[in-house]
């Protein structure tokens, strides 16, 4: 039984010109103590999935279909009060993109963590919350004496660690990290990824890591889901997806992402640019940029089918039926 099961999730944004289908029928599972990587380019719906899971969408965003099954709940159907009581921070917590700037600059870091703890566990005393914050800092490798400082006194890497500590304040089962290392330097990035791997093992935490960087996913996750135009193009075991990519988009992305030790080669680009989700094509969203496009691709949206154990792909090339 997976910790989290997302079934056919659809999240749209309403704008003047119509609906942007940011997430359009996405299904995946997250197992206990495992990490799922969501990869894709900007505008493919990765972050919308994260905000949908916690129901913290902007006011014009709405979940129009699907189920998010977590423990005994369907998150899609919960009320605000229930979400606060059972889900946010206690069940699932989120480290936002650009965590460097996500802290309140006029509050001490300790006060921000205490606020989070007391909001979700009202019967915890301030002193106890502070002690817990100290333990959390220790866990993420920041000296607890720094709790008394303000965010601007922290370096980028420390801020990211502090944000992770804050997200863990109420012992969540799932931690979502949205672009956890994008603004960080290479060495600090490696430190943060190492921390996430350690936390996953030590706390048997489930992780959802959102990134545009395939290599980050390869280093931290057991499973990967490649998204394109609001849908999952390919998902499965990390080895299957990286070693035997089946979707032309996954293949293209991997080609555009050279390894540093690989022999010098010309980079592969995918012609064109991601689709406009306001007027998305009827068929496969990738058709325009796909070098294997067939007539059927323009008219029929391919289903995500299992081609081998724990390896799913949504492409007519692999649809044998």
């Amino acid at each position, binding site marked *: 039984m997976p910790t989290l099961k997302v079934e056919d999730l659809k999240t749209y944004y309403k704008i003047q010109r119509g609906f942007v289908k940011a997430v359009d029928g996405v299904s995946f599972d997250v197992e206990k103590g495992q990490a799922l990587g969501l990869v894709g*380019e*900007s505008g493919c719906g990765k972050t919308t999935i994260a905000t949908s899971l916690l129901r913290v969408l902007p006011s014009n965003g709405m979940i129009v279909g699907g189920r998010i099954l977590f423990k005994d709940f369907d998150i899609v159907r919960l009320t605000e009060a229930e979400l606060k009581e059972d889900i946010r921070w206690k069940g699932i917590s989120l480290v936002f993109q650009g965590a460097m700037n996500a802290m309140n600059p006029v509050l001490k870091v300790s006060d921000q963590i205490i606020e989070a703890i007391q909001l979700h566990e009202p019967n915890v005393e301030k002193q106890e919350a502070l002690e817990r914050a100290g333990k959390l800092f220790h866990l993420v490798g920041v000296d607890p004496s720094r709790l008394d400082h303000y965010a601007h006194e922290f*370096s*980028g*890497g*420390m801020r990211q660690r502090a944000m992770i500590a804050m997200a863990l304040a109420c012992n969540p089962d799932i931690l979502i990290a949205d672009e956890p290392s994008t603004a960080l*330097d*290479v*060495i*600090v*990035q*490696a*430190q943060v*990824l*190492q921390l996430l*791997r350690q936390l996953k093992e030590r706390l048997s935490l489930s992780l959802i890591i959102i990134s*545009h*960087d*395939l*290599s*980050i996913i*390869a*280093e931290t996750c057991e499973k990967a889901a490649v998204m394109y135009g609001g849908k999952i193009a390919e998902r499965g075991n*990390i*080895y299957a997806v*990286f*070693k035997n990519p089946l979707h032309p988009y996954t293949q*293209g*992305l*991997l*080609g*555009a*992402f*050279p*390894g*540093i*030790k690989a022999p*010098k*080669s*010309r*980079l*592969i*680009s*995918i*012609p064109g*640019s*991601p689709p406009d989700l306001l007027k998305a094509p009827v068929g496969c969203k990738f058709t325009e*940029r796909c070098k294997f496009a067939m007539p059927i691709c323009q008219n029929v949206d391919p289903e995500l089918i299992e081609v081998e154990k724990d390896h799913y792909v949504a492409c007519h090339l692999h649809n044998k039926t």
Partner: protein
Amino acid sequence: MEETLLRVNELKKWFPVRTGFFKSLAGREKLFVKAVDGISFDIKPQEIYGLAGESGSGKTTTGRLILRLIEPTAGKIYYKDKDITKLKPKEFTPYRRKMQIIFQDPYESLNPRMTIGSIVSEPLHVQKICKNEREVQERVAAALDEVQLTPPDEFVPRYPHEVSGGQRQRIAVARALVLKPDFIVADEPVSMLDVSIRAEVLNLMVDLTEKLKVAFLYVTHDLALARHLCNRLAIMYLGKMMEKGYTEDIIYEPLHPYTKALMAAVPVPDPESKRAEVVIKGEIPSPINPPSGCRFHTRCPQYIGDICRLKEPKLVHVGKDKYVACHLYSEKT
């Protein structure tokens, strides 16, 4: 001897730190951010020279210094053996024609109120090199053609917001190319672009070195991309060069402990590759008061004692155009 297009010698840029009025009255020593602190390198024609480092290492400042967008504090810049460091603006104008720049963010570096045609033709008007408007249009069309924005007529009347990110960056390249330069500084040209379209801009750069014989200074923090693009590479840390040489040598046989750490930290898009433990602690120190001696000694896993703390290692030649600034290697010579 091989021809050198551009040579930089002991280049320095110290930015003064603004202190309060009373502090300055107290006559305290003036503080500087030593953004670039004595670096030397040379670029050959048609070469892509990579300048890599973490944020705050001074790589962007170096690019701007070479084009004299900011004035160096000390050091010399030679373009084809001509010292251009102290030329007056008027005298420098013809050199600007030969040296151009592409900025990091194509969403900010293109004026949203100008059409693509006027953006690309602006350098021609500034430099007043075309006799008539027809010649201007021809050169704009040719430049757009070089960057594969075809047919050019279709792009000339449009505005930057009407085209994609990758196309925007190609407009920036066209704007640089329209003056027929032989040297372009590319300052993180793809870091704002999506993965799938980064390659088109980078491949364009490679093609231009061959077709138009342009050399690039490629400023980047992404070593994996630098590896696939650059002939030679220099690694910077806190305004100093730690190691420089041919890209292959640096990637496969890094010598400086900092370079080694960087190589180990670069994530690999292969789930089978074994992760090495991160040995480097902490983050890049402030360039206002950089550590004494070797700037890396506070984080160095191969710290060998007082010499690292007290004496600044020189960049020494260790073979085949490879230089390292580290006491582990300077002792042998």
